[in-house]
């Protein structure tokens, strides 16, 4: 059962268009992102869900020719006058393949803090431990913090990447298919973690696994050909979607 209270808004896409050069990848996206909720973005490959996700941390700014129209409104987070570097501090991201830096476990997590200019050893120790605990990997790595991160297992690497994203205390976490390279056990660990993390951060997750979207999210958005077809409570989307295209996608029918 879901509670009836209306969640507070964390961010909101308003008429968001996005272009890779001439190619329009997002078409007039309107969608709320609710605070401390998990929102899953689903849709077939090439529908724009990753593009949309990456608009939230301004990753597209890194490449020339990319262009936005419309806006992602947000409580002081993504205003145009905010420095993209600052945005990325407050919006963490985790990718499909775990991508630890070729550094020690400790330095991976401390990295974002050091970039921010934090070099006090006690502060770093504290924050690294907390991030590793929050990412549910502390017990596994506490005795091997100086070891090279790439030596960890895939599932551990992914949780380390989550710890790295958490270390800078983000308000929003973006997951881009975080478990598609992991086995079911490691996947379950990440899903459990997502469930715990939403007590304090807002989470957007792109997934190709519909059952995963159904398991972990509070809200689900179905995208197709760059458009937001349907957004709603996950319970409603998976039992009674309003749009026939959503229905066909989640039931595995040919459109």
């Amino acid at each position, binding site marked *: 059962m879901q509670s009836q209270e209306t969640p507070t808004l964390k961010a909101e896409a308003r008429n968001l268009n996005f272009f890779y050069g001439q190619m329009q990848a997002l078409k007039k996206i309107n969608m709320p992102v609710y605070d401390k909720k998990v929102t899953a973005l689903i849709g077939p490959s090439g529908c724009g869900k990753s593009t949309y996700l990456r608009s939230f941390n301004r990753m597209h700014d890194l490449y020339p020719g990319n262009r936005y129209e419309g806006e992602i409104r947000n409580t002081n987070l993504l205003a145009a006058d905010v420095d993209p570097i600052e945005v990325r501090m407050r919006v963490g991201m985790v990718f499909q393949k775990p991508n630890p830096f070729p550094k020690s476990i400790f330095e991976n997590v401390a990295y974002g803090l050091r970039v921010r200019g934090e070099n006090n050893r006690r502060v770093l120790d504290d924050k690294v431990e907390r991030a590793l605990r929050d990412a549910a990997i502390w017990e596994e790595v506490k005795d091997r913090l100086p070891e090279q991160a790439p030596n960890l297992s895939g599932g551990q690497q992914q949780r380390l990447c989550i710890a790295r994203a958490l270390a800078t205390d983000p308000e929003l976490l973006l997951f881009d298919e975080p478990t598609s390279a992991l086995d079911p056990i490691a996947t379950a660990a990440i899903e459990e973690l997502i469930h715990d993390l939403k007590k304090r951060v807002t989470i957007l997750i792109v997934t190709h696994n519909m059952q995963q979207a159904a398991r972990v999210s509070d809200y689900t958005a179905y995208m197709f050909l760059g458009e937001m077809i349907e957004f709603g409570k996950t319970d409603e989307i998976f039992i009674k979607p309003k749009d*026939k295209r959503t229905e066909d996608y989640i039931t*595995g*029918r040919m459109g």
Partner: protein
Amino acid sequence: MSENVHLSSQFDEDLGRLRSNVLQMGGLVETQVMAAIEAYKTGDMTRVKNIIEAEHTVNDLEKAIDDDCAHLIARRQPAASDLRLVFGIIKIVTDLERIGDEAKKIAKGVRRICEAGQLPSDYGAGVRHIAEAALGMVRESLDAFARLDSAMAEAVIRADVDVDTEFKSIVRQLVTHMMEDQRTITTSIDILSIARAVERIGDHAKNIAEHVVFIVDGRDIRHQGKDKKANEESRA
């Protein structure tokens, strides 16, 4: 329900087979009710026997369909309309099985009356009349399921009120009858249990129709009348 086919043709086949098994079970139960009405009219003992024997087949079908549903959920994780269909079918077969049970109760009641050397049809046309109405409800709820037609299902739900009203009037008649002539008490009680079984058949048909509305529209319309009444009473 989408008319598009699944990417997995196996999934389409599984769902199609599930639906046709439900309709097969429905047809069987409908025949049981029809035979029960005939037995009531004519006192035909072979029909009574057939109804009682058909119960095993109905029970086996119920188990087989439930089992198919469990497998389908485990293997396919159905969502949206597929999920509603499977969920609805699990509930529909329970109601169908109960309708079969009620038909059996009617048959046994008829047998008791006949064994006492009487004919149930001597006790007025009331029961026969609601029995036909209940049978119509069963038939139409199954049609509504076959066609996934929620408007048709809602007509079945409305029809249940008439069956309930008529049942009450039959009860009143029988009570009068028994007061007038105490020798009729034993048979009247049997007639009463038959009428009760018929009324229950109407209720189960109504339930099936409610499941059909859920399958088609995703609306849960059960207990609305009662809840509304309870709300009004608590407010008053």
